[in-house]
């Protein structure tokens, strides 16, 4: 039997270049979050099912990898990381004063192979602001998301900001029988506006809200859209949402990101989960959002510590894919020195390797003795910028592309490399 060298379907290996890009992006995201005072927490890959049940919808629960541990508890591999953070805030961090600013990074898993690239394991980096309500907190998290996208090196991105309450207000106000309302919700969740139109056509009672639902995908633009929508809604919930959005938008201008922000009143998201301002971040020429987030004020109370909360997560895989496809894709950093040796040169080679690393350079010391010609071949295979061949204690020969090989004492080679000289 040949082993499955490709791994389990839906799970990917990241080869050195991809792994490097992903790790770099993750570090830039976490670094930006820390600059805003968010503390990094690491929660386990496994959670008890009864914890996840509190925070996830039926569909999300269905897609979890579940199994029982030795005690007979049903546990699952996490499919997102906001619920574990909520568990932490209500549990071990119960004594910590609110508001709490926390961030995380890690893989999330799903039994479904996603529509895109059939991935069942993806990587998310996220931030949560727990215990703060109102537009200032909403704007902080949105501005942080924008700066995070910038920090990874994505150019030309935009953030669409909407409000879950705008939708809830409309659904309260439309005069429809309950079963039609739930069909309307289902059609919207499926983004099926043809079905929505035929559902609404069949009802005799027309209202302004009715009209708004049909125009959902087009309710998008700058601040002028708020006034336009304000003229159409006749219910308090939607009106309150509009005025909150106006405040958030002003704050985002003050944050310095007014030019990348659009208002999207027709944003369609998980409306059972989100309770207030919601947003999505888009990169250039990419068919789906890279960052998603919003206010979820009802989650923490299910864990016994009622608190308002808002946050977002960035799809790290998408970020690294965007960077890979950008005009100047990141390259794998070069190995600075290949240190070869022969005869009594091994000690010198090992010492030289340590010295170079001490100066922050990448140095690989050969594992076997090689003559001059073999050492050159090995140098090219390693792909290093320099070859240092050690044959004795006193003198080593140093080769670099486009220059003749020189014989120098090892300390001098180290000093010159460290000083960026050739």
């Amino acid at each position: 039997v040949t082993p499955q060298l490709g791994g389990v379907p839906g799970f990917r290996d990241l080869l050195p270049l991809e792994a490097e890009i992903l790790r770099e992006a993750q570090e830039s995201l976490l670094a930006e979050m820390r600059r805003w005072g968010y503390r990094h927490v690491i929660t386990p890959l496994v959670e008890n099912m009864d914890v996840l049940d509190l925070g996830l919808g039926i569909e999300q629960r269905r897609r979890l990898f579940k199994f029982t541990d030795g005690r007979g508890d049903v546990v699952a591999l996490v499919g997102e990381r906001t619920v574990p953070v909520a568990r932490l805030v209500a549990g071990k961090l119960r004594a910590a004063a609110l508001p709490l600013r926390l961030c995380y990074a890690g893989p999330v898993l799903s039994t479904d192979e996603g529509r895109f690239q059939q991935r069942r394991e993806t990587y998310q980096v996220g931030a949560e602001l727990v215990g703060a309500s109102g537009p200032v907190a909403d704007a902080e998290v949105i501005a942080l998301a924008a700066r995070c996208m910038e920090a990874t090196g994505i150019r030309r991105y935009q953030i669409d900001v909407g409000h879950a309450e705008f939708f809830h207000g409309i659904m309260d106000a439309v005069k429809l029988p309950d079963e039609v309302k739930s069909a309307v919700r289902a059609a919207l969740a499926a983004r099926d506006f043809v079905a929505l139109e035929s559902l609404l056509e069949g009802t005799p009672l027309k209202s302004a809200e009715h009209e708004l639902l049909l125009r959902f995908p087009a309710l998008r633009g700058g601040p002028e859209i708020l006034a336009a929508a304000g003229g159409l809604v006749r219910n308090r919930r939607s009106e309150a949402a509009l005025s909150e959005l106006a405040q958030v938008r002003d704050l985002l201008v003050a944050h310095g990101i007014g030019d990348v922000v659009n208002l999207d009143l027709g944003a369609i998201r998980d409306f059972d989960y989100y309770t207030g301002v919601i947003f999505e971040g888009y990169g250039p020429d990419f068919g789906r959002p890279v960052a998603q987030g919003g206010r979820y004020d009802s989650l923490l109370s299910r864990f016994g510590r009622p608190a308002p909360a808002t946050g977002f997560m960035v799809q790290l895989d998408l970020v690294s894919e965007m960077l890979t496809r950008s005009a100047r894709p990141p390259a794998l950093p070069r190995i600075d020195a290949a240190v070869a040796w022969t005869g009594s040169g091994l000690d010198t080679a090992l010492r030289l390797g340590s010295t170079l690393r001490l100066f922050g350079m990448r140095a690989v010391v050969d594992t076997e003795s090689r003559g001059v010609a073999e050492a050159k071949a090995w140098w090219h295979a390693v792909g290093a910028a320099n070859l240092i061949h050690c044959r004795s204690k006193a003198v080593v020969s140093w080769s670099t592309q486009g220059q003749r090989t020189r014989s120098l004492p090892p300390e001098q080679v180290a000093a010159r490399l460290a000083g960026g000289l050739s």
Partner: protein
Amino acid sequence: MTRDDQVSIAIPTGALLNGALSLLAASGLARLTAEELGRQLLLERGEVRVILVRPSDVPAYVDHGAADLGIVGKDILWETPGSHYELVDLRFGDCRLVLAVPDSSTVDGPDTWPPLMRVATKYPRTSSAWFEARGQAVEVVRLHGSVELAPQVGLVDGIVDLTATGRTLRENKLRITAVLGSSTARLIANQASLKTRSSAVQSVLSRLREASGRAG
């Protein structure tokens, strides 16, 4: 004109192609013939790029953002739900998804269905969901072509297939016993295109919407 303000539209080969081309012409966006598009597969005309793909591939092009908009039969969308927006019923390409059985079969209404119904289809997802909703156990055999043949050789009790006129079914001595759904051409849009390239996409969208309203 750069890639940024050009809007790309995926249109399907096959039965919906002529309707899609008439719509593009009526909206004033592009006048193309099936022949030139068949040769090129990708044509640029002013503000639009038209991409010709297999019907079942349209959602993939749109969901991945390779096309901003797509014209596709509702029957395809039943099988491949995705992240796109379904925006307009274009009101052409009418057809029905039906359950058909051999003329000689005793199967007719739900009370005559066998305890385990076996059907052959190119629409496994839609078929399973439809029978399940009616409390009927079903074994779906997924075929890729010549579905009409399957009941004649005893592979299955019936077929679930798309029909516009019913002629192919009659020719194969099959009769319709139930209609699972009606399909027409739909206009779908990528979720991000509607946001990141909003004004260009919305403008093309409204011209297509208006043209389809005039035709219907």
